């Protein structure tokens, strides 16, 4: 398949697919080599630039053709997001803990968050954002990890596409601010901070 024909074929496949398509799949479907597919994807990326309403992006280990982020509001007028699709702040925080520490058990999540995570973990399981990842030892607590659906939802290329957690750590001044808030709330004495 010539490259010109290949990029059109990939364009059609990505338009049609309801899930991200891996490069391996694209190679099989288009009967082309990985290097040709990569070149054709790059060509498609150029074709669907900022002037287009669509973009070709790599998420969840595959490639998709999707609407551009800045058009989300107008797209949502056509496709109203059901309320149950939204995630609560507690669910988002729990998801962040699991994403960075996976595989992680429910008691470990509760220790990190400082509150019970039973209901939140159940909700994330129901939504397909996380899945069971086995037990560390026989009889131990079940551990959980994020799913490709999580990567799709948050536009991640893969499980390692998250920003480093050190980027979010508190600076010394911010940590001191936390202590000050505790003092203000009566949880710490001045001389002990």
């Amino acid at each position, binding site marked *: 398949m010539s490259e010109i024909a290949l990029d059109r074929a990939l364009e059609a496949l990505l338009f*049609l*697919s*309801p899930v991200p398509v891996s490069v391996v799949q694209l190679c099989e479907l288009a009967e082309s080599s990985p290097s040709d597919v990569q070149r054709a994807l790059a060509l498609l990326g150029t074709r669907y630039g900022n002037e287009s309403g669509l973009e070709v992006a790599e998420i969840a280990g595959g490639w*998709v*053709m*999707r*609407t*551009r*982020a800045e058009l*989300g*509001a107008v*797209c*949502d007028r056509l496709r109203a*997001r059901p309320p149950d*699709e939204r*995630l609560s*702040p507690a669910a*988002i*925080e729990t*998801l*962040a*803990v699991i*994403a*960075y520490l996976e595989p992680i058990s429910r008691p470990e999540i509760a220790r*990190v*968050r*400082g509150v019970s995570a039973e209901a939140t973990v159940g909700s994330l399981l129901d939504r397909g954002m996380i899945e069971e990842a086995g037990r560390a030892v026989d009889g131990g607590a079940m551990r959980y990890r994020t799913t490709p659906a999580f990567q*799709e*939802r*948050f*536009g*991640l290329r893969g499980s390692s596409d*998250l*920003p480093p*957690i*050190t980027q*979010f*750590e*508190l600076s010394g001044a*911010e*940590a001191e601010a*936390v*202590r000050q808030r*505790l003092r203000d709330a009566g*949880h*710490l*004495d001045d001389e*002990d901070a």
Partner: protein
Amino acid sequence: MSASGRVADPLRLPLELDLFEGPLDLLLTLVLREEIELAELPLRDLVEATLRGPDEWDPPTTGELVLLLCSLVELKARRLVGEDDEDDYAPDPDAELVRERLAAQLIAFAPFQRAGMWLSMQDGIDGAVRYRRVPLDRAAALQAPHAPNELSEAIIRLMVAPPMPSMGHMNRERINVGEIVAELRGALRRTGRVSFDELTDGTDRLAQGMTLMACLELARRGEANLAQPVPFGDITVHRVQPGFAGE
């Protein structure tokens, strides 16, 4: 404070120094300087010795003495308990540990809170998945729209009234033996004899049974004879000529 008395009693020593007046005043100063171990000082003996003294205590001196003894008792009590005022307000080390753990936990969890905020922003930007999610197998199963004439034909077929359901099983057939007897008489009058099988051809088992009863009734009345040459074979009903006067 001034005190006077016998020389043998140390509390009655006429002690008058530049800075002290009497032994109790000196004692209190030595205690405050920690040159005397107050915990080992028998305060009860001191009080009793003071009160047993021969001197008459005037009210100001008595008040001063009571105040001095109370100070000694308070100092000894604190020394025996082993705590001073500063210690009374010392924070509980266990509570401090819990508070420090709380601060450490909040600081440790803060990165994940921030990561959650970052995820929320990604979620908000994406507006969830921004491509069509209809599975291919479901999409392939969707049929193309039909032509208007096909749809109208289908609707017409739907609008045809269905056949009325049979209520036959709910209606019991009413058979009158008298009517069968009259019919049998007429047949015999015309032909002289009839075959039971011909007579009941095409009828149900109830009608066949009722017809047999009609034949037996005519035979009982002497109006007909029944003949069945072969067991389970056809029954022939013959008209009886002489006695046939039932009309």
